[in-house]
């Protein structure tokens, strides 16, 4: 199990961080999220070419740099602390994980397109319930020369900038979950979009008997649920990295605030009560940091260990994140309630992330259900 970045990984992280500090500061970000597109093609292009990070966590056969889950983690960490809204998670982690399991040229081309910054994915898996269904209501019927897709997907993110959509659906007469691909501008795709509290766009996507070619079914043959679950676990592990980045920023901003703000004749940072609470936040942060490495390390394990390990990590890290975010707002006092400092935006992203791909309760249920003693897992 890797618990520290390699020297090379550390350098990459520094490069991303420096780029975001210059080009994705608070004001630049506000401009992006309030622009009509609500994402930045320039930034994405820089990710692809100036930073070259879009293929960092992908294998070489997929045009990537041969990295893995730890690389995804470090990117998500850096993106998290700058509150980047562009769809790295959807495209390079979750979407790419599905594409890597697909056979045929379509998937291969798309992976190359991802690395080159030309392909961006939106993931349409949620429906009207609380979580991603393994038996979606959305269905794909086999028809002459391909498929006919119908259904409604809910809370799809990344659509304004996505070139393609991955859709989970019950396929054919068997009714197993399969994963389909279609262009974002495919005729017959109807969107109703609105903002999210973390500065992104969420869409309800309606597929009204859309005709798709035969190779639109990326993952079929009964493998859809398994492949998609693996991809979600990889995304969940990557979210752990994002959470760590958000926490680091929350603590740093809070410490800086307490060190410059005076009350009752002293700097807030000199009040012992606040010192001890910051210490607890820092302890939570360090645990989360260590466990994000663990989650990344387990993202490749067999499902019987991967699922509870990733679930345990997301649950523990989400608990840390919630604690740190709520405390950071509290310690900022009224300033924590405004939309003007980064703190409120970090809080909102933390609020969303906590439930993204499963709430703490849901993940803890997976841990209980696995019933397994985790002794020795952290060492492997």
């Amino acid at each position, binding site marked *: 199990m890797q618990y520290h970045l390699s020297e090379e990984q550390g350098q990459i992280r520094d490069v991303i961080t420096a780029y975001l500090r210059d080009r994705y500061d608070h004001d630049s970000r506000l401009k992006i999220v309030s622009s009509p597109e609500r994402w930045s093609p320039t930034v994405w292009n820089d990710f692809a070419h100036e930073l070259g990070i879009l293929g960092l966590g992908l294998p070489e056969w997929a045009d990537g740099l041969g990295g893995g889950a730890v690389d995804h983690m470090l990117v998500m960490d850096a993106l998290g602390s700058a509150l980047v809204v562009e769809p790295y998670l959807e495209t390079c982690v979750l979407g790419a994980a599905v594409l890597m399991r697909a056979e045929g040229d379509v998937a291969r081309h798309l992976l190359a397109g991802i690395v080159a910054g030309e392909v961006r994915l939106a993931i349409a898996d*949620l429906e009207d*319930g*609380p*979580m991603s*269904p393994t038996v979606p209501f959305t269905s794909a019927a086999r028809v002459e020369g391909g498929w006919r897709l119908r259904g409604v997907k*809910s*809370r799809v993110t990344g659509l304004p900038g996505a070139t393609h959509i991955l859709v989970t659906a019950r396929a054919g007469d068997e009714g197993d979950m399969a994963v389909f691909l279609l262009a974002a501008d495919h005729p017959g795709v109807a969107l109703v979009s*609105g*903002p*999210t*509290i*973390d500065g992104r766009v*969420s869409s*309800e996507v309606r597929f009204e008997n859309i005709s798709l070619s035969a190779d639109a079914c990326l993952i079929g043959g009964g493998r859809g649920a398994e492949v998609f679950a693996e991809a979600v676990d990889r995304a969940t592990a990557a979210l752990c990295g994002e959470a760590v980045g958000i926490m680091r920023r929350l603590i740093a901003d809070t410490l800086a605030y307490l060190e410059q703000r*005076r*009350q*009752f004749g002293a700097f807030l940072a000199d*009040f012992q*009560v*606040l010192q001890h609470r910051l210490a607890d936040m820092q302890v939570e942060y360090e645990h989360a940091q260590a466990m994000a490495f663990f989650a990344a390390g387990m993202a490749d394990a067999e499902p019987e260990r991967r699922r509870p390990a990733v679930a345990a990590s997301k649950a523990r890290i989400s608990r840390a994140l919630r604690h740190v975010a*709520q405390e950071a*707002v*509290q310690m900022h*006092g*009224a300033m*924590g*309630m*405004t*939309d*003007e400092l980064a703190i*409120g935006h970090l*809080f*909102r992203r933390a*609020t*969303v992330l906590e*439930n*993204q791909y*499963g*709430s703490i*309760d*849901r993940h*803890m*249920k997976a841990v209980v259900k696995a019933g397994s003693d985790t002794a020795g897992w952290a060492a492997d």
Partner: protein
Amino acid sequence: MSDQDFRAEVRAFLEAALTPEMRTAPRTIMLLDVDLQQAWHKRLAGRGWAVPTWPEDYGGTGWSREQQAIFEEELVRANAPALSPNLQMIGPVLIALGSDEQKARHLGPLRSGEVVWCQGYSEPGAGSDLAALRTQAVRHGDDYVVNGQKIWTSYAHRSDWMFCLVRTSSEGKPQAGITFLLVDMKTPGITVRPIHSIDGLHHLNEVFFNDVRVPVANRVGAENDGWTVGKYLLQHERNGVAGAAYLRMRLGHVRALAASSPDDEGDGVMMDDPIFARRLAEVEVDLLALECLIHRADAAPDPGLKSRMSSMLKLRGSEIEQAISEVGRLALGEWGRLDQSLGLEDRTLPVAGPQGGPEIMLSYMMGRSATIFGGSSEVQRGIIFKQLRQYGV
């Protein structure tokens, strides 16, 4: 009248007077729609029930404690909007400490719901630490000339009047030079600037005073004695029965949501999930304990004891308020991601996800302020410890 008859009477009135819009309008403590709130205030006032706890001479109802409790319960049951909390703060202060002229001028419109008041305490650099107040009032003949800035002023942009604390002297202890003024928001020199808050909405404001002339007749209490007035007023914050009733109402909303929200497995509702049900019961029991403490405070034979409990009620009331939103947010799950604040303001927009979800997210985010505004939890703990040291357990 028997309590039972009284309850029936209240219920019948609410049935008739509350429009469906009033019952379902989005709210934090107040309705987001101030006009609608004031419309409700006027209906209550029309029935003589807008200020039941005021002395009867000033329009109070003279109800027994039981009747008062029944009234609060029925308001919650009917999902009635709360009236402006400032009504319960400035009213009793004017009754106790205002001049005859002030009473004559302000109590009527306050009671009838014709004017809206805001509270001007906080300043940049003087939030929890009121003694650090810097907005200055200098006496010029029959006026004070006020210069400075207030911040975090809820609904200043919709208010007709402000009650506020200003500095009239820098001598002695910092608390000593503070004066309590009533300010007409239409006075020249006042600028209100919106602050967008963490929920993306506009409740809060900065208020700038630039050579604002406030007649000396608008001073409550003596010059430099504003601290006493301000403290009197703080005792009338929503820490009592009304505050608990509001929490009950919020808990009811969460309960309703959880009874219809599908659980994580998608094969039942959240309310039937044992972990969720336990969490909700935990909040319910915390609220029940708080209510017990409120009743104990209300019935305290010693007024000192009652006032000592107010810090505890503020502390735990605000924590429970947050716990309710937290549980609500759990019932809402990933639906909470959607920013439907526009829909809260423009109610013709459709709601995505469970009904009541957008309000819960609003309460979760804006509710972080519960432990910050009105004396932060840290300040309350300091006060409680001092009292413990002075009076013993």
